[in-house]
């Protein structure tokens, strides 16, 4: 059983090819990190997989109706838009729109998502007046409240302090452990190495590597995709990854 199946997906925007023939599946229990240098097309790949932009090839999500897709996958875009000064609770409650909203199950999902992102104290505060990191957590809670089998987030940890980066990754890991699937685009390779069960490396207009972190974060692939060297070690506290220098 797969939650998302992408087959030979290719996207060209304004005559420029972003990537071609990308194929991967995401199964329940996986926490997949999508990594790649700036401009590799990580956001485009996720949006094409969702069917938000046109693409050649197949994606199981893009084939669904809009309503079914909203119950299958939650999507947290990179742009953290909150257009109106609603409360955190009202913001999180928006995640229940695809399910109807307003029922007891909806209420339970909202409360659970708020607790999970440690927002209980902030829930009556105005979302637009929160700090950037707090807004990011509120928006993640919105996506969690959608209670979909698959969760997709674009740079969910950007702008969070270290404690919240780690606890957010742990929330995603818990979701995966409970049988959901998670696909995140990440720039922090250290977080990717420690928390993801699998990494997709998007570079050179294609999927350069797909596998467990130790198989993807190799010196060769890092040099090719990111032009960096790195220290990567297994320690008693888990894997440690630190980028070291730029290869010129």
């Amino acid at each position, binding site marked *: 059983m797969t939650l998302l199946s992408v087959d030979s997906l290719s996207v060209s925007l304004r005559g420029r090819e972003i990537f071609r023939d990308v194929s991967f599946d995401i199964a329940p229990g996986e926490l997949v990190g999508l990594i790649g240098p700036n401009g590799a097309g990580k956001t485009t790949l996720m949006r094409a997989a969702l069917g938000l932009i046109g693409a050649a090839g197949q994606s199981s999500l893009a084939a669904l109706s*809009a309503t079914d897709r909203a119950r299958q996958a939650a999507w947290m875009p990179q742009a953290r838009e909150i257009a*109106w000064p*609603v409360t955190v609770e009202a913001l999180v409650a928006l995640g229940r729109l695809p399910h109807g909203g307003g029922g007891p199950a909806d209420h339970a999902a909202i409360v659970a998502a708020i607790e999970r992102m440690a927002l209980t104290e902030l829930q009556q505060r105005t979302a637009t007046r929160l700090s950037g990191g707090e807004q990011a957590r509120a928006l993640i809670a919105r996506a969690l409240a959608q209670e979909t089998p698959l969760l997709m987030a674009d740079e969910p940890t950007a702008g969070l302090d270290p404690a919240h980066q780690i606890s957010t990754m742990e929330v995603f890991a818990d979701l995966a452990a409970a049988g959901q699937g998670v696909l995140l685009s990440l720039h922090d390779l250290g977080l990717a190495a420690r928390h993801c069960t699998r990494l997709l490396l998007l570079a050179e207009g294609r999927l350069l590597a797909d596998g467990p972190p130790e198989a993807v974060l190799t010196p060769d692939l890092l040099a090719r995709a990111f032009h960096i060297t790195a220290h990567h070690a297994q320690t008693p506290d888990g894997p440690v990854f630190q980028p070291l220098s730029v290869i010129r």
Partner: protein
Amino acid sequence: MTRLFVVLATLVILLALAALMVGPADAGVAASLRALLGEGGPLVLVMQEIRLPRMMLGLMIGASLGLSGAALQGYLRNPLAEPGLIGISSSAALGAVIAIQTGLAAAFALALPLMALAFALLAVVILLALSGTRRGDTLTLILAGIAISATSGALTQLVLNLSPNPFATSEIVFWLMGSLADRSMTHVALAAPFMGLGFLLMAGLGRSLDALTLGEDAAESMGVNLSRLRLRVVIGTACVVGAGTAVAGAIGFIGLVVPHLLRPFTGHRPGPLLWASALGGAAMLLAADVAVRVTLPDRDLKLGVLTALVGAPFFLHLIWRNRRARA
């Protein structure tokens, strides 16, 4: 939320009754209501043919302006949007002005609203052709609206400029100020189907507009069809504003101020703001129409003048309060 509904609905009912009671034919409340139901000689005519259509138009146009203002602000995620933004009211006004200038309106009473409706329709066709139904492209919609407004405004001024007849000119100027005076049930019947269609299109947009709080991408991923949403907002606004302008002239500020005023009471959520603004718009226009009749009963103070006169300083006050709250 229920309390807000009860308060606004009560206000609308009271103001609607007040709108029925106020007028030069000074009749008591009981006599007026009896006359409305058809007993009481000449007062029956006053109530049924003059005050009832005036009240109904106030109710319908006010609700239209409030609803479409809230829908546009929610769709564009911009509290400065107002129904006039997309150019429908100015092009409807142009149609009416041409009807007055050419004498069509004098020859055939319904020529004016019909011409206004035709021009509103033309404007919406141009608007959709220019801005299309492409998702995410709100800027093109706004720019197309501004271009249509500017063109219609310039053509209206050209008609005034070249008008050889000072009577037609003053009639045009007064008509442009907006009024509910001397309207009949025919006007109600003419506007009602368009407004009904507009309400049907826009009343159910609450959830989509709520979802849009998170931006277009997130909203679309939650099942919102952005192209359909855009069409419903644009055509819905065109229907209600085109019909409103056709029968009452251009009445400004209500579509801008009412959603702004009521937004805090709905928790800033654009969905519930739709019905709240519809009720609030109806209340504000009815209040304004009662006010023009009470303050200067002999001078025929124009409704659009009053709404702008009261609305603009009030808006300034809101901005001032907002600024202090933010500081």
